[in-house]
C-alpha cells in the first residue's frame, strides 16, 4: 500500500506527461500481481470498491481525538482526507505495523458489509501509515483525481511491454482488473490475450487538418468528401447481443443515450457522429448540448431531443474485420447495411460531390447546415488505421466566422496575467441607425500576443470611465473606442444575454486600431447567422 500511496503522491506533483509515464512504468515493472493491476484500475476509475461517506470518517476520527484539536487541524489543512490521514491516532508502534498489500486492502474493503463497514475501515486506518491512509481515504471517497487519463495508463502498459498503445486499447475493454493475462503477455510469459470481450472498442482513425500545401499535390479524384458534423464521434458496436456505444477515446457513453442503444440491433461496428433530432431534421448545436455531459437521461429529454447516428464507416460486420479494406469498399458495405437499420436512428453520411479543390472549397464555405464544421477528405483506397496517420484522411474546417466588435469592459486576469486587463467583453451596435447603442455579445481572453496584451492593457488604463472591483468600463462610443475583430465557431440563441446571441469559442483574431468604432458590425449581422 505504501508504494501505491507514494505513486499517487508523486503523480499529483509531477507536471510533465513524460515524468508521469516514467513513474507509472516503474511502478508497474516493480510491483507484483495483482497489486499493480488493481492500482491501475484505481487510477483509471475502474476499481469496484464500496464507497465511504465523509460524515462517517469525521465520526470515526472525533471518536478518537479531541474535536477541538481536530477542528484546528482541519482548519489548517483544508482537505478532510488529508487531515484525517495525518491526525489519525497511531495505536501501534511504527515498526510493528506491517505494510499491507493493496490487494489485501481492496479485499478487506470488498468484504465489509454495511454494519461492520466503519469498524473494518477504522482497523485498516490503524494498520496504515500516513500516506497510505491518505490513499485509502481518497480511494474510498472517490477523490482520486490525479491527472492520469485512461490514455496515459494504457501508454504506460504499452511502454512496459514494448507494444503500441493501440494494441492495448483494443484489448482493454475485454479485460478486468487485475489484468493478469495482460501483464503476462506484456512480460512475454504468455500469448496475447484474445479479445475475449464481445463488442470491444476499436481505436478510431482521425484526420489531420489541411495545411497550406497539402492539396497542391493531391489529386481530387483520389478522395471522397463528406460533411464534418460537429456532434460526438462515436463507435456503435453490437456483437452476440452485447451493445456498446463508445466515445472516440473508448469510454462507454451508452448510459447517456439509451434511445440510440435500443435501436442498435445489429452485429457490426459502425463509426459515425452522434447528433440530435432526426435524420430528416438534424437539430441545432444547442439541441445537442441538452444531451451532452450527462451520465443518464430522462425519458422526457430523450423524447424531446432524440439521439441518432450519422454513419461514416463500417469496421466490422458479423465476424469479418473490414478495417484492412479500402474506404470505397467499406463504404459500399456500409451502404448495404443501412437498409437493415432503423431509419429514425441511423442514416448514411452523404458524400459531397466535387470536381476540383476550388469547387469543394466553395461548398465548405457555405455548408447546408449550421452543425457542419467543414468537410472530411478520405482517400478511396485508405484502410482504417487507428490513430492519426498523415495522408489518407484530412479535415478541412470551415473558416471561422468573424465580426468587428467594440471593446466595452476589461477585467484583470489570473496567475501570470493578474497584473493585466486580459479578459474582454465586447459589443456590437444595435437599435436606431442614427443613435445606436452597444450591446455586449461575448467575452474573449485569448487570441492576442503578449505585446498586443500590453497594448490593450495600456489602452484600457488610459480610457477607463468607471471601475467596479477588478473590472473597468472602457470608453466606447461612435467616435472613440477600440475595434476588435472577433473570430468564433458559431452562434446560438441565448435568453441569458441581452443581445439574444451567444458565441461559440470566441477569440480575438485582430486588433483593428485603424477602424473607427462607428464602422463596427451591427447586431443584425450576427442575427443573420443564427440557425433558422
Amino acid at each position: 500500500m505504501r508504494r501505491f500511496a507514494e505513486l499517487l503522491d508523486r503523480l499529483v506533483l509531477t507536471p510533465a506527461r513524460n515524468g508521469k509515464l516514467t513513474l507509472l512504468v516503474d511502478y508497474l515493472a516493480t510491483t507484483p500481481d495483482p497489486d499493480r493491476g488493481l492500482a491501475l484500475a484505481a487510477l483509471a476509475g475502474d476499481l469496484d470498491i464500496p464507497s465511504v461517506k465523509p460524515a462517517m470518517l469525521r465520526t470515526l476520527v472525533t471518536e478518537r481525538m479531541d474535536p477541538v484539536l481536530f477542528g484546528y487541524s482541519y482548519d489548517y489543512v483544508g482537505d478532510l482526507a488529508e487531515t484525517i490521514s495525518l491526525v489519525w491516532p497511531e495505536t501501534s508502534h511504527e515498526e510493528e505495523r506491517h505494510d499491507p498489500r493493496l490487494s489485501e486492502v481492496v479485499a478487506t474493503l470488498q468484504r465489509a458489509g454495511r454494519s461492520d463497514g466503519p469498524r473494518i475501515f477504522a482497523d485498516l486506518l490503524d494498520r496504515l501509515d500516513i500516506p497510505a491512509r491518505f490513499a485509502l481515504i481518497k480511494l474510498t471517497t472517490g477523490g482520486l483525481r490525479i491527472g492520469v487519463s485512461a490514455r496515459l495508463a494504457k501508454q504506460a502498459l504499452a511502454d512496459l511491454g514494448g507494444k503500441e498503445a493501440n494494441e492495448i486499447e483494443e484489448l482493454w475493454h475485454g479485460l478486468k482488473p487485475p489484468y493478469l493475462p495482460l501483464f503476462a503477455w506484456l512480460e512475454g510469459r504468455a500469448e496475447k490475450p484474445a479479445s475475449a470481450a464481445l463488442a470491444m472498442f476499436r481505436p478510431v482513425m482521425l484526420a489531420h487538418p489541411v495545411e497550406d500545401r497539402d492539396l497542391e499535390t493531391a489529386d481530387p479524384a483520389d478522395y471522397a468528401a463528406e460533411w464534418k458534423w460537429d456532434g460526438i464521434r462515436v463507435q456503435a458496436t453490437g456483437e452476440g447481443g452485447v451493445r456498446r456505444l463508445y466515445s472516440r477515446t473508448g469510454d462507454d457513453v451508452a448510459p447517456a443515450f439509451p434511445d440510440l442503444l435500443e435501436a442498435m440491433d445489429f452485429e457490426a461496428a459502425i463509426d459515425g457522429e452522434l447528433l440530435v433530432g432526426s435524420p430528416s431534421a438534424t437539430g441545432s448545436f444547442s439541441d445537442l448540448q441538452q444531451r451532452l455531459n450527462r451520465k443518464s437521461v430522462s425519458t422526457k429529454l430523450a423524447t424531446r431531443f432524440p439521439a441518432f447516428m450519422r454513419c461514416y464507416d463500417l469496421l466490422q460486420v458479423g465476424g469479418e474485420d473490414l478495417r484492412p479494406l479500402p474506404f470505397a469498399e467499406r463504404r459500399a458495405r456500409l451502404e448495404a447495411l443501412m437498409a437493415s437499420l432503423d431509419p429514425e436512428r441511423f442514416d448514411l453520411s452523404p458524400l459531397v460531390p466535387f470536381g476540383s479543390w476550388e469547387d469543394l472549397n466553395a461548398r465548405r464555405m457555405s455548408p447546408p447546415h449550421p452543425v457542419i464544421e467543414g468537410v472530411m477528405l478520405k482517400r478511396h483506397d485508405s484502410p482504417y488505421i487507428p490513430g492519426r496517420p498523415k495522408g489518407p484522411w484530412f479535415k478541412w474546417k470551415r473558416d471561422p466566422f468573424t465580426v468587428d466588435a467594440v471593446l466595452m469592459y476589461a477585467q484583470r486576469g489570473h496567475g501570470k496575467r493578474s497584473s493585466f486587463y486580459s479578459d474582454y467583453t465586447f459589443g456590437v451596435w444595435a437599435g436606431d441607425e442614427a443613435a445606436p447603442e452597444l450591446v455586449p455579445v461575448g467575452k474573449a481572453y485569448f487570441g492576442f500576443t503578449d505585446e498586443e496584451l500590453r497594448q490593450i492593457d495600456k489602452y484600457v488604463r488610459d480610457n477607463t470611465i468607471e471601475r467596479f472591483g477588478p473590472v473597468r468600463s472602457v470608453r466606447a462610443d461612435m467616435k472613440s473606442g477600440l475595434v476588435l475583430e472577433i473570430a468564433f465557431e458559431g452562434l446560438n440563441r441565448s435568453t441569458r444575454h441581452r443581445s439574444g446571441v451567444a458565441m461559440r469559442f470566441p477569440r480575438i483574431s485582430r486588433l483593428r486600431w485603424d477602424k473607427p468604432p462607428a464602422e463596427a458590425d451591427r447586431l443584425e449581422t450576427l442575427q443573420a447567422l443564427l440557425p433558422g
Partner: protein
Amino acid sequence: MRARDLLHTRPEGLYCPPGDFFIDPVKPVERALITHGHADHARPGNGKVLATAETLDIMGIRYGEGFAGSMQAATLAEPMQIGDARVTFHPAGHVLGSAQIAVEKDGMRIVASGDYKRRADLTCTAFKPIACDVFITEATFGLPVFRHPDPVDEIARLLDSVRQFPERAHLVGAYALGKAQRVIRLLRDAGYGETIYIHGALAKLCDYYVAQGVDLGPLAPATIETGTKDQFAGAIVVGTPSAFADRWARRFPDPVACFASGWMRIRQRARQRGVELPLILSDHSDWDELTATITETGASEVWVTHGREEALVRWCALNGITAQPLHLIGYEDEGD
C-alpha cells in the same frame, strides 16, 4: 519565587531580571544568551554573548568576527552563575551547537527549549529532557497534523527518484544551517557515495561541520566547469531554498525540484512552491514529540512560543497542565 519574576517577555525578547540577561533577543541588548545559530535566534550587535562554542563559531561565520562586544563559551551541562541566577546549557538536538537553557533561582527552574528535535541526527548532540517547573517549548509544528516520517525513508524516496530519473538533476532545497548538512549526512548513511554538488551559500557551513567531525563525503561546488548541462544529469544538488527560485537553477537539466522541510507534510505547501518531490525532513519536534517532551520534563506549567500555540495550550489543558502562549515577536524560523 514566582516564575515570571525569573523570566518574562520584554520587547527585546525573553528577560531574566535576577541575571539581567536576555535569551535569543530580537533587538541588540547588553547581555544575550543564544540557544543556536539560526538567524531568528542569533542576531549580531549584542554586548556580551554567551552560547556554546559551536554557536559562537557559527555566528562568526555568518556575521563576521565582530558580531558582538565579547563572547563567552558555555559548556553543556555545566552550571554557571550569572548575577543571582544559575544558568545551564543542555543539548537541544536541533542543529550543531544548539542548546536549551535552564535558568534557576530559589528552587524554581525554567527551561527555555529554543528549537529542538528528538530524532536521531548524526550532525549534532541529541536532546536531553531536563526536569523543570516551567518548560518553555517551541511550537513550530504544534498541530496534530505534523507527524514527521522516518528520515531514512525520506532519503530512500529521494534515492528512488534519482534511480527513476537518471537523466535529470535532483535539486534539494534545504536551509543553509543544519538541514543541508543533515540531508547530506543522511544520504551518506544510506550508502550514497557520489559527489554531492552544493550551492555557494552552503560551502562555509559545510566546511565547518566537516571540521567539527561530521563526515559529509565528497562535495563540489555546483558550478559548470565543462560548460554543459549534462554534467549534472543524475546528480544531487543541495542549495538554499531561495537559490532554486533564482536564475542559478536554470543551469541544471530538467531538474526535479525537491524541498527538505517539515512543512512538506502538507500537500498544499508542496503544490504552492512547485515542489515535485517533497521530502518531509524537519529539525523541529513534531506533535507527538512536543507532547511527549512536555510530559517528560514533568513541568507543571508550560509556556508555548514560536508557532501554533493554541493547539499545544489546548493539549496541556486536556492533560491537566497549566499552559499559556508566550507572545514573542520576531521568530520566523529559518531552519524548519
